[in-house]
């Protein structure tokens, strides 16, 4: 029932879209009717090109996550542990964070040429700095009291790291991962338009060259659904579970 009510607004939108396009208010060249878009989606799915592009995009996101997240978390914890290094490093990472994403593309193309290396470099950059930053901030924001309490009870440095600092930083780390994949997806779509010949970004940009609005809309809807699915089914539960696990739910939010 709840999902049904969630879908109702989209039904209204599609009906309005149908009326506007069938009524001839907008040329089909600019906005094809929903049924045409559905037909194009079916065709693209049947000849396999939609799946190829979808798999390419998903694979790139996955590659970006796998290469950058472990490194970012590891480095973030290491730097966060050092009270003298951390405040120096934080603004530097913050700057690269501000720069992350698509702005690296021209330099990436200069260094690695067009293709998957450049795209992976962009993804790595985007995800790495955000997760690094959030891990660092997370570790640093764990109150000293907890650490001192464990120490007083005879806990070693290892205890402090694995039972205080990392669990304490986890909500921030997971929030960073979720945010970074959001930024990563967006950077990927833009990078695919410029630097590759596969992927959903390429698919819609290429379609624009041929004025195939229906194929563009199929791509846009796929991109939106994919991100919503990743966020709803994977990232939000992960975030919620982390927060609940460590009892960090606040009464405010």
């Amino acid at each position, binding site marked *: 029932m709840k999902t049904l*009510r*969630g*879908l*109702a*607004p*989209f039904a209204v*939108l599609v009906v309005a879209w149908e009326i506007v396009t069938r009524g001839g208010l907008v040329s089909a*060249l*600019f906005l094809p009717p929903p049924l045409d878009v559905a037909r194009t989606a079916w065709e693209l799915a049947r000849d396999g090109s939609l799946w190829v592009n979808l798999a390419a995009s998903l694979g790139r996101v996955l590659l970006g996550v796998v290469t950058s997240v472990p490194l970012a978390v590891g480095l973030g914890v290491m730097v966060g542990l050092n009270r003298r290094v951390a*405040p*120096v490093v934080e*603004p*530097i990472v*913050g*700057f*690269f964070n*501000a*720069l992350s*994403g*698509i*702005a*690296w*593309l*021209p*330099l990436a*193309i*200069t*260094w690695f040429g067009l293709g998957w290396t450049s795209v992976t470099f962009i993804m790595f950059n985007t995800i790495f700095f955000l997760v690094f930053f959030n891990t660092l*901030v997370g570790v640093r*924001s764990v109150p000293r009291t907890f650490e001192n309490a464990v120490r007083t009870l005879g806990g070693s440095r290892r205890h402090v790291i694995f039972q205080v600092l990392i669990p304490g930083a986890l909500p921030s780390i997971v929030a960073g991962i979720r945010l970074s994949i959001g*930024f990563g*997806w*967006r*950077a990927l*779509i*833009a990078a695919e*338009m*410029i630097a590759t010949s596969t992927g959903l*970004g390429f698919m*819609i*940009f290429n*379609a*624009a060259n041929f*004025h195939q*609005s229906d194929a*563009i*809309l199929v*791509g*846009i809807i796929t*991109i*939106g659904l994919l*991100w*919503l699915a990743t*966020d709803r089914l994977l990232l939000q539960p992960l975030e919620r579970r982390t927060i609940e696990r460590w009892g960090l739910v*606040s009464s*405010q*939010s």
Partner: protein
Amino acid sequence: MVVTWIALLAAGLGAWSVAAATLPLPDYYLPPPTAVLAAFVDLTAKGILPTYVFASLRRILLAAALGLVVGVPAGLLLGMSRRVADFFYPLLNFFQSVSGIAWLPLMLVWFGFGERTILVAVNYTVLFPVIFNALLGVRSLPPLYANALRTLGAGRWRIVRDVVLPGALPSIATGMRLGLAYGWRALIAAEMLVGAHGLGFMIFNAQSFHLTARIMLGMGLIGLLWVVLDYFLLRPLEEATIARWGLVQR
């Protein structure tokens, strides 16, 4: 602290110079810092750089203004009624998930290669997270506060001013920050793809001519401008919510 940063910066520039001079790479792979400085002086003297910086800044500030003036009130208004909010929530959530850059190809078909396409893509990217988070901010307010005021005889306007607006502020600040962060990146990408002035256009165009020093200059400015934007526009907004309402948690 400042001394440490200056020392680090000097060390970084030194290492970069040494690497540029000694690494067996073609010159355009890694130009030395002096080349970037030369590019800065050259482009500033020609007046190209100020024009591009101004073009990019104007576009993002326009989107920020639209977000504040249209996005925030729209989100608040939609959030005021439970029914209306429930209807728009999934739609807004979907549209804020699709980045503006994904709409760019369709905008190209609609408006062609030009300023309008860039503006629509960037404003779209900024607007949806702002509306969505403003709506979310209103909806997540405990009804208790509004009821308390109503019991004491407050009118609708009074509730908006004293409960809804301050209560939604942290969420609005989040939306503005996220929207503009996405928007700034979408702007750079749109400028690359559409190619009409701006820093994104500058670095993308420089790549075709192997003018790597220009790319690095542009990247430095893109990062710097965001830091400035963050510091002068977004921080004050967030700090106003922390200081005044003590509601922001980090």
